C-alpha cells in the first residue's frame, strides 16, 4: 500500500510542471474570423466577455494529439464559467479534422476551427505546434503555453477560474 503510494508520488513528482506563462504586457488578441468545423463562421471578438483558450494544433502532431483529451476535460471542469475553447487546426481538411474529433477519448465537443492558409497562426505569431493562448474577458492575451500540457491539471484550472472571475 505504502509502496504503491510512493510510486504514484514519485511519478507525479517526475512530471513536468503544468504552467501557463503570464504575459507581462497585455495586448489585444488578433481579431480573426474562423471557419468552424461543422459549424458557422466565428470571429474571436464574438467571444468577448469570456475567457477563451485558443489552441493551435494538427492531427499529425503527437503532443497536440496527446493534450486534446485534457482540453475536453477542461471544458467540463469550467462548466458554468464564462469560458470557451477554440482549437485552430494548421492547414488540414475539414474531413480529416472531423474524423479525428470522433477518434479522441473523450470525443471533442469544443470548437474546432480551420486555418487553411495559416493566417491565424501568423496573426498569433505561432512558431511551433502545439501553442496555446489564453484570452481574458477583455479580449487580451493573458497567458501562453508552448508545447503540450495537461489542461485539466488543478493548477491550470485554478488559473483559468481566477481569470474568469475578473
Amino acid at each position, binding site marked *: 500500500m505504502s509502496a504503491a503510494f510512493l510510486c504514484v508520488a514519485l511519478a507525479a513528482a517526475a512530471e*513536468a510542471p503544468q504552467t501557463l506563462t503570464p504575459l507581462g504586457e497585455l495586448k489585444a488578441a488578433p481579431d480573426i474570423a474562423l471557419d468552424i468545423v461543422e459549424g458557422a463562421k466565428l470571429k474571436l471578438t464574438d467571444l468577448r466577455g469570456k475567457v477563451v483558450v485558443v489552441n493551435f494544433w494538427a492531427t*499529425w*502532431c503527437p503532443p497536440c494529439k496527446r493534450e486534446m483529451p485534457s482540453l475536453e476535460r477542461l471544458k467540463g471542469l469550467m462548466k458554468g464559467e464564462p469560458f470557451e475553447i477554440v482549437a485552430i487546426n494548421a492547414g488540414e*481538411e475539414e474531413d*480529416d479534422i472531423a474524423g479525428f474529433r470522433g477518434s479522441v477519448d473523450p470525443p471533442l465537443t469544443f470548437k474546432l476551427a480551420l486555418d*487553411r492558409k*495559416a493566417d491565424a497562426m501568423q496573426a498569433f505569431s505561432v*512558431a511551433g505546434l502545439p501553442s496555446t493562448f489564453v484570452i481574458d474577458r477583455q479580449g487580451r492575451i493573458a497567458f501562453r503555453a508552448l508545447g*503540450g500540457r495537461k489542461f485539466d491539471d488543478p493548477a491550470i484550472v485554478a488559473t483559468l477560474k481566477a481569470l474568469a472571475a475578473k
Partner: protein
Amino acid sequence: MRGERLAVRFAAAATVLSLIVVAGDVTAQEPSNAHLPPKPQPRELRHEGVVIKITSLLIEPVAGFLIGRGFTTPVAQRYAASCVIRVVISNESAPSNIGYDLRAWRARRADGALVALHTREDWMTQWRAAALPAASLIGFEWSQLPTQQVLDIGDSTNGMVNTGLPPASRFDLLFEWMAEGKTYRIDMKGIDCAPPS
C-alpha cells in the same frame, strides 16, 4: 475516390505518428527484419533543467507523411533519406526561460567535419520555388522544429530536423542554448541515422 484519398492520408499520418512516437519499439515487433542494421534508438540528454530528446526517423514513414501532404514521391524520398531526426526540447526547470537557435547547432560527422543543419526556412525556399500547394507547405513547415524559440519553464517544442547526412551515418550533435545571458553548449555523441529503406 474521395474515400480512398482520405484513407491514404489517414494511413500516412498514422504511420508517421507511430514512427515518431515509438520508433524504438518497431524493431522489437519485427523479428523477421533481423538481417537489417539495428534501428536507431531514442536518445535523451538532461542538463541544467533542459531536456533534449532525439529520435532518428525511419525513411519510409517520413516520406509517407510528406506524400500524404501532397509532395511527389521523389521529392519526399529525397528529403526523408537525408537523415531526419525528431527533436524535442523541454524547459523543465532551467533557472529562467531558455532560447535556442538551430542555426548555431552542428552535426559532427565521423570524419570530424562540422556541418550546419537544414532549417525549415531553407526547405521552404525550395518548396515555394516548386509551387507546392498551400496545404503542403503548411503541413511541412509546422512539422519542422522551429528555427528559433524562447521556452519558459514548463514549455517545450518539437519537430523534425533534416541533417543532410546519408542513411546509416553516425554523428555527434552539438547543441547550444541561452539562459540568463549564459550560453550552454553540450553534445550528444554517436547518434545513428536510420538505415537505408
